[in-house]
């Protein structure tokens, strides 16, 4: 056998055990949280989000359209149906941890509830060409009144 300086292997086994335990914990936690946030409330309003080079279009349930701006009511659940007209974009509202790719030819969904009123940046997270860096919008959360 090649020269090795290892005398006993039990420390390594314990070490591996700890590592695996940690990984299992990470996996369990992640699985649990994902399960919670993937569950869409029944009364969520649907917003159709369309990305194209290089701006976002939003269509509300009542058919009103907005470009680059999205006005939502505080405290109401919204479900985004995200797609793209040309290349892959990624719809992202950092402050609400909303992120989903806009893929041409398919509709991805993600839901959230705006809890605070105010203005929040909307941006594109997937490289989509020349003006990708400026494919930005604004989310306006208003009080229900």
């Amino acid at each position: 056998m090649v020269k090795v300086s290892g005398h006993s292997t039990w420390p390594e086994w314990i070490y591996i055990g700890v590592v695996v335990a940690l990984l299992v914990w990470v996996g369990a936690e992640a699985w649990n949280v994902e399960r919670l946030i993937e569950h869409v409330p029944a009364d969520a309003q649907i917003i159709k989000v369309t990305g194209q080079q290089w701006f976002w279009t939003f269509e509300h349930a009542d058919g009103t359209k907005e470009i680059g701006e999205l006005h939502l009511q505080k405290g109401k659940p919204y479900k985004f149906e995200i797609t793209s007209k040309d290349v892959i974009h990624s719809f992202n509202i950092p402050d609400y941890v909303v992120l989903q790719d806009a893929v041409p030819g398919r509709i991805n969904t993600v839901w959230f509830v705006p809890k605070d009123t105010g203005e929040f940046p909307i941006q594109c997270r997937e490289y989509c060409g020349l003006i990708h860096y400026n494919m930005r919008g604004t989310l306006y959360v208003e009080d229900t009144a």
Partner: protein
Amino acid sequence: MKKIVGLSCMLTILLVLPTIQYVFAQDAPGEYLDRRVEIWNLFFRMMTVAFVIGAIVSGTLIWLVWRFRESNPKAKPTKYEEAGEW
């Protein structure tokens, strides 16, 4: 050995707390869960563990570097050196 015990304690705590949290969270009616809270809590839980482990490992590494450096007064030749074979 103590290291492992400490770790396992911490793990159990970290596992139990969130479970209780969300069991209660479910009860409140008409309340939608806030993905920000869920995700960031998960993140910070994991970062806590990550930094603890990080402290242990990098601590070990730094100690190794300090203790077994050639210039350390306590340094003595390894038993492979006289043979010159390793």
